[in-house]
C-alpha cells in the first residue's frame, strides 16, 4: 500500500482528483476503521467491534465486513451491500499527515496510487495562480473534520480501557458446516456499564459515550447478517469474496 505524500503546489500543480467514491479501496478488507459519530449508522449494517492495532497494540473501532481474513462481504460485484459507506472511504485519496519532530503539524496528503488521481480527469487541486481550489479546501476541511472525529474516538476508547469496560472475545460461528472463528476482538461488557457510578453514567450520556456504547452493542446482531451474506456468496461460487 502506497504511503500518501504531502501535497505541495510545486509537485502537484497539475494534479486532478475525481470527486467520486472509490469503493474498490475496500477490496480485501475484512475491517474498516470507523469513528464514534458513525457508530449508529454503521451499526445498521455491520457489527462494530474493537480490535488492537498489530503494530502499536492500541485499540481501534472497526466495522466488520467479513468473517475471514481479507474477506469483504459488503462490497461485491461493484455493489455496496449496505446502507452506509464509512467515512474512511469517502475521503478519496486524501489523508491528513502528521509531520514535524513530534508529529504536531498537520498537512494534507494524497495517495498517488489511487485510481481517483491523475493529471487528466477530475477536479484540479490548484488554480492557474497556484492557489488551492475550492475543491481542495473542501477536501481539506473534510479530512480535518475526520481527524477530529478520530481524536474523539481515541478518547472514547481510552475511557473504555481505563474503566475496564472491554472484554476480550472470540467470535465463533458455524456456517453450512464450516467453522468460522475470529479472535482478538474486544466488546464492551454491558454488565459493567450498568454498574457505572451515577455521575460517570451521566457524564457518558452527555458526551455521547453511552449512545456509542449501545450502538456498538446493538450492532453485534449483524454478525448473522454477515453469515447470510457469506452463505449467499458461497452458493454463487467461491468462499472468499473480494471486491471487484
Amino acid at each position: 500500500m502506497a504511503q500518501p505524500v504531502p501535497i505541495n503546489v510545486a509537485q502537484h500543480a497539475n494534479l486532478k482528483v475525481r470527486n467520486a467514491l472509490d469503493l474498490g479501496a475496500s477490496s480485501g478488507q475484512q475491517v474498516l476503521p470507523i469513528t464514534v459519530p458513525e457508530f449508529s449508522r454503521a451499526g445498521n449494517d455491520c457489527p462494530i467491534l474493537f480490535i488492537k492495532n498489530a503494530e502499536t497494540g492500541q485499540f481501534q473501532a472497526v466495522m466488520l465486513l467479513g468473517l475471514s481474513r481479507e474477506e469483504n462481504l459488503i462490497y461485491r460485484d461493484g455493489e455496496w451491500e449496505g446502507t452506509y459507506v464509512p467515512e474512511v472511504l469517502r475521503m478519496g485519496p486524501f489523508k491528513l499527515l502528521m509531520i514535524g519532530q513530534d508529529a504536531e503539524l498537520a498537512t494534507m496528503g494524497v495517495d498517488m496510487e489511487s485510481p481517483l488521481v491523475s493529471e487528466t480527469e477530475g477536479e484540479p487541486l490548484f488554480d492557474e495562480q497556484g492557489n488551492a481550489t475550492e475543491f481542495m479546501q473542501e477536501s481539506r476541511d473534510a479530512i480535518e473534520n475526520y481527524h477530529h472525529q478520530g481524536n474523539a474516538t481515541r478518547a472514547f476508547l481510552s475511557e473504555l480501557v481505563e474503566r475496564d469496560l472491554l472484554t476480550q472475545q472470540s467470535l465463533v460461528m458455524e456456517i453450512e458446516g464450516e467453522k468460522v472463528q475470529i479472535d482478538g476482538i474486544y466488546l464492551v461488557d454491558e454488565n459493567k456499564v450498568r454498574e457505572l457510578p451515577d455521575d460517570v453514567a451521566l457524564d457518558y450520556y452527555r458526551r455521547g459515550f453511552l449512545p456509542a456504547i449501545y450502538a456498538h452493542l446493538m450492532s453485534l446482531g449483524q454478525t448473522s447478517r454477515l453469515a447470510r451474506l457469506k452463505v449467499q456468496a458461497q452458493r454463487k461460487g467461491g468462499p472468499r469474496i473480494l471486491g471487484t
Partner: protein
Amino acid sequence: MKRPSSAVREVLVVGGGTAGWLAACHLARQLHPGDPDGVRVTLVESPDIPTIGVGEGTVPAMRRSLQYLGVSETDFIRECEATFKQSIRFDGWMSRPGHSYHHVFDYPRRDPLDLTPYWLQSRRDRSYTDWVGLQSRVCDAGLGPKQMTQPEFQGVTSYAYHLDAGKFAALLTRHATDKLGVSHLKANVTGVHRDATGAIAYLDTDRLGELHADFYVDCTGFASRLLGQTLQVPFIDRGDVLLADHALAVQVPYAAPDSPIPCQTIATARSAGWIWDIGLVKRRGTGYVYSSAHIDHDAAEVELRDYLRGSIGTQADTVGIRRIPMQVGYRERFWAHNCAAIGLSQGFVEPLEATGLLMFDATARMLAEQFPAQRSLMPLLADRFNARVRFAWERVIDFIKLHYCISDRDDSAFWRDNRSPASIPDSLAQNLAIWRHQVPSEYDFSSKLEIFNLENYLYVLYGMDYPTDISAIAYRYAQPETAQRMVAENRALSERVGGALLPHRELIDKIHRYGLQPV
C-alpha cells in the same frame, strides 16, 4: 467495629530504597491504611543516607508482584529505564574456551516425558536448554518476549526486568504514597528505644521528634540499625561457602543509541569471581564480584577495565568505579519482638542469580500476608517467618554455590578453593551425589518456598555438563521416538515464535511510544 487493644495498628518502615518501598507497598496492599479499621503504614527515610542503588536484575516473580501491587507495566517501563530480562547467560564458567550457557525463565517442557535422560544419552550437539525449550534461541536472536497486542504483564516467553534501582525506588515511592495510602516522612533516626520486654518502643529523629509504632520494619541496609544494632541479633557469615566479598560497580554507555539491548544478564567468570553486565535502555550496569582473599583490589579493577575495554574502548581507562564491600550471609533471626528486617538488613549474597530484589520482594510479601492480627501472635508468627526465611537463604546459598562447585575451571586458586568439600553445604553435596547417578526429580524439592526448584537446577547442571551417568539405568528410558518428536516440535515452535517477535530495542521503543494496554 472497635478493634481490640491487642491489635497492631501502626507499622513504621525504617529506610527507603527498593527494599523499604517494596515492604511499604506489600504491607499497604494487605493492611488497607485508608480503611478506618486498617493498619497505618508509614515509611521514614533519611534525606542524607544514599541507597546502595546497585540491584538491577529481577526474576519473573517481580512481574507478578508489580501486577499484584497495581503498578502499571507501561509506567514502570517508561519510568525505570526498564528492559526485558529472559535469562542469565553464563560465559566462561567451564574451562573449555568459549563455553556459554543460558539459565532461562521458561519452564522446560516435561510433558509427556522428561527429556533430561534422553539429552544425556544424546550426542549433545545442541544445548540442554535448546532441547527443552525455545527461550535461549529467542535470547540469542535478540528478540523481545512479548507482542504489542498482548496486555500488560503477559508475554510469549516468561520474562523479568532489568531496571534502574534509583528510578524503581522513586516509582514505588509515588505508587505507595499516591495509590496505596502510605505516609512518607524524611528524617534521620538518632536513637532507638526499647521497652521493658525488649521490643522497640519508639525512635528518636533529628527533625520529627519521636516516632511511635506497634511494628517496625528494618530496611536500613547493611547497617541493620534496628534488628542488628539495637536488638543485637547476630549475623551469620557464610563466607565459608561463598568466597566473594567485594564488588566493583560501574555504569557505562552503549556504543550507539540504537545498539541492540541484550535479552539477558551476562555473568562472565573471571580469575577471582565474575562480572555482571545488565543492559538498560540508555546504559549498562556492570561490575566485578570478587574475593579479596584471591585477588587484590587494584588487580580486580584492572580485570574489570579490561573487560570493559572490549565494549567501550579507551573510556574503560577513565570511567569511575565504585567499590562496595559485601557482607555475605544473613541474620540469625529476621523477626525479633516487633521488628522484622527486609532487604540488606536481613541478609545478602552475591547477585549471581539476581537474588537481592527477589528476596526483598518475597519476604516483604510473606510478612505482609502473615502480618499479625493481634500482638499475642507475634512470637509464633516470628518463629514461622524466621524458619521460612532461613530455609530460603540456605537454598539460595546452595544454588549459587552450585555454579562454582561443578565448574572444572582450574586456572586459579579461587576456582579450586570453590570445590573444596568443606565449602560445600551438606544439602548441596547430597543432591550432587544423587545426581551423579540419576536425573534430578520433583521429589528432590520438597517445599513451596525453595526459591530455586527443579527447572533451575536442570538448566545450571546441564548447562555446565554435570556428569550424570545413567548408563546403569538406561532401561528406564525407553521412549526415544517420543523424545525426538518433542524435540522436533519444540524446534518448529521456536521458529514460529521467532517470526512473531520484535527485536528487543524496537519493542522497548514501541512501548515508550504507544504504551501497553492493560487488557
